[in-house]
């Protein structure tokens, strides 16, 4: 406590310098926050994925058959198989793409945020849809509303292109689907298709017993159909999600590298600032030592001086980053869709970075203070 007035006095002595240091630390931590939050948001999107899910797409045309689903269900390590399909087109405005994922049964879709009761509702209301808050807000619909999705590519038995749904419930968004979600029932999809198309499936989702073998199961499924009339393209959902982050730019590599460069720059600046500040105030420190401050006491004082603007700047920077982070998905279409996430880990990393920054920038001045020749300085001989 007794140090506080001293620290305050030191910081306010050169106000411009303190403000500039504070601002540059803020800029660096804004960059750090935005970059690491983007990285964390993406990592979370991969982490939340159910490791037991393997998806099988047709390699060339939409022609997977119900029979293949049964064959895959019979493979070792496969616990359940369920079909899926997309109804994809637009809602109201042809320029605004919209669609639903039509999902099979509960056993094959453990990755959906639906309760038993919600799954059961589909038995009575096959044309029902579950939307996330984000999606419902985008489309401007609420529970109980009917809406039409116009899909010009998926044939219907009645020859029309409009798929009519009723919103059963609007559910909370989850990090699993950062852009929002909309689910319909596969049963409704199948029954609405022309008779000839009914045995054809969009894709299969298999749930494996041992999640460590998910990728092997995907490879086994493809090998089974490689030389058949309907070759497949299978992959574990986790690998598929992970790929999105490296397809165009390697998100993790770019974001972490940029964050590191920003911190390094600020380290240089604060280290220089502290060295200069100590050099200018050697006389003051000599007096402190003379009146009984220990070496470590003086060093702690300098450390606190470095720490104060660093902590304040980091807090301001992370705050700004949190404000900016929400806008990143719009600003950076290169990055895969993910909600930037200032996770506790990112905040902890920032805090560690602040400590490290203050520590590293104080090392050299501290050594100088320890070797301080009090008598010589007070006599004005240096």
């Amino acid at each position, binding site marked *: 406590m007794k140090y506080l007035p001293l620290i305050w006095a030191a910081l306010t002595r050169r106000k*411009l*310098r303190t403000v500039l*240091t504070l601002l540059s630390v803020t800029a660096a931590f804004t*960059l750090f926050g935005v970059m690491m939050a983007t990285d964390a948001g993406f990592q979370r999107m991969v982490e939340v994925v159910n490791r037991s899910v393997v998806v099988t797409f047709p390699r060339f045309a939409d022609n997977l058959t119900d029979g293949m689903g049964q064959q895959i269900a019979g493979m070792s390590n496969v616990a359940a198989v369920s079909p899926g399909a997309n109804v994809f087109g637009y809602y109201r405005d042809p320029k605004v793409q919209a669609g639903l994922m039509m999902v099979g049964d509960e056993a094959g879709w453990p990755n959906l945020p639906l309760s038993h009761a919600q799954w059961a509702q589909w038995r009575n209301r096959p044309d029902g849809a579950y939307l996330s808050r984000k999606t419902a807000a985008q489309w401007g619909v609420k529970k109980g509303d009917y809406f039409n999705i116009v899909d010009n590519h998926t044939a219907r038995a009645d020859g029309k292109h409009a798929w009519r749904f009723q919103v059963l419930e609007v559910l909370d968004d989850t990090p699993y689907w950062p852009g929002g979600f909309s689910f319909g029932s596969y049963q409704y999809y199948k029954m609405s298709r022309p008779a000839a198309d009914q045995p054809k499936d969009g894709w299969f989702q298999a749930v494996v017993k041992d999640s460590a073998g998910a990728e092997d199961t995907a490879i086994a499924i493809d090998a089974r159909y490689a030389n058949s009339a309907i070759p497949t393209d299978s992959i574990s959902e986790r690998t598929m999600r992970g790929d999105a982050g490296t397809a165009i730019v390697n998100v993790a590599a770019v974001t972490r590298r940029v964050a590191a*460069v920003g911190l390094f*720059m600020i380290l240089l600046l604060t280290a220089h600032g502290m060295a200069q500040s100590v050099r200018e105030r050697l006389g003051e420190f000599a007096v402190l030592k003379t009146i009984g401050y220990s070496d470590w006491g003086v060093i702690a004082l300098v450390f606190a001086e470095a720490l104060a603007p660093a902590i304040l700047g980091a807090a301001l920077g992370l705050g700004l980053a949190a404000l900016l982070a929400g806008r990143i998905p719009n600003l950076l279409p290169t990055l895969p869709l993910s909600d930037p996430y200032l996770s506790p880990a990112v905040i902890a990393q920032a805090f560690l970075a602040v400590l490290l920054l203050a520590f590293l920038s104080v090392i050299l001045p501290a050594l100088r203070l320890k070797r301080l020749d009090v008598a010589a300085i007070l006599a004005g001989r240096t």
Partner: protein
Amino acid sequence: MIFLRSCLAAIQLNLASLKHRLWPALVVVVGIACVVATLLSMLSMTVGLRHTWQRAGSPGRAIILPATAQDEGDGTLSRAQAQIIKDAPGIARDAKGRAIADPEIINGLVVRRRDTGGRGFIRLRSFGPEGLALRPEFRIVAGRMYQPGKHEMIVGAEAPGQFLGVGLGDTVTMPDGLWPVVGVFKTNDDLVQSQLVADSDTVMPAMRQTAYTSITVRLAGANGLALLTRAVTTNPALSVKVERQSDYFNRRSAQFSNLNDALVYGVGVLLGLGALLAAVNILHSAVMARRCEIATLRALGFGAGSVALAVAVEGLLLALAGAVLGASVAYGLFNGVQHISNNTAFHLIVSPAMIALGLGWALAIGLLGGVLPAFHAARLAVADGLRAS
């Protein structure tokens, strides 16, 4: 003239004292180098990827796409339409009088990525007999050419490094079974070198397709493009558009710069802001430390303007040094390094234009960083300054 000479003298004095302020100066230089190196390293990806696309285009060739298609894989052109286009004027002809025009089919095949084991997409580009005559840059470097009619294909030299199961001797899953890869080809270090190539008349039935996706032609003479465009766009049997092939790839490659610009310049601005504040801080400290010296100069008759200019010039020179350092680091670390993005292998490029941009960025930081301290130096009261020591 006197002003100029006093400025020069002030600058000289300033720089002479720089060696006593080596560490602060280095902080500014290294800080700005960080900004420039980061900016260039990020830009090198966009520019490298664009370059690889642009190399695939030649101004002597034209590509004909269905009118609604943006990309060469987007639409369909029937055999009959292809024949009409082949007969159009403006297309170069070989010794036997046949048009040097080749209908192509682009298909996307799913393959496994070598780096992550995940899904990648490789393009299967199918040529007809004229495909090679159109492309003098195309050459087989290992194995042999595919035989039309046989279920086999060849692979671009960059593809096996990115994808599993597409190397010489591997088999690729096609709708009617497994096709062996019998040869490796190289082109002009362009994007085709990351693709597979097979015979179009063999691929079409195998893929259960009935149409081509584009036609590439060699243009005849200087007005070939105009002749061809007029002929095919006024023909009511066709609904197509003609683009010079170099223009087409230039247009298509623009998507990458659009995608990355926000990221690159956003980071460049934030990092630049950090460096700018550092420069202001340090130059200002330098002015404060040299109060006595500056006051002496003023007392000797140097004008406020020349003293201020000297400080600003110092900022610019430090920025210049930082830019040179940063650009050298970026060039040394990144230029020519192989990289994979968007299923295409390419080499990162740190071009002179990018270095100029980095230089401009750095000088802007130096200039802005020098203004406030320079202003401060100019307004320093002489009497106070002389008393400061």
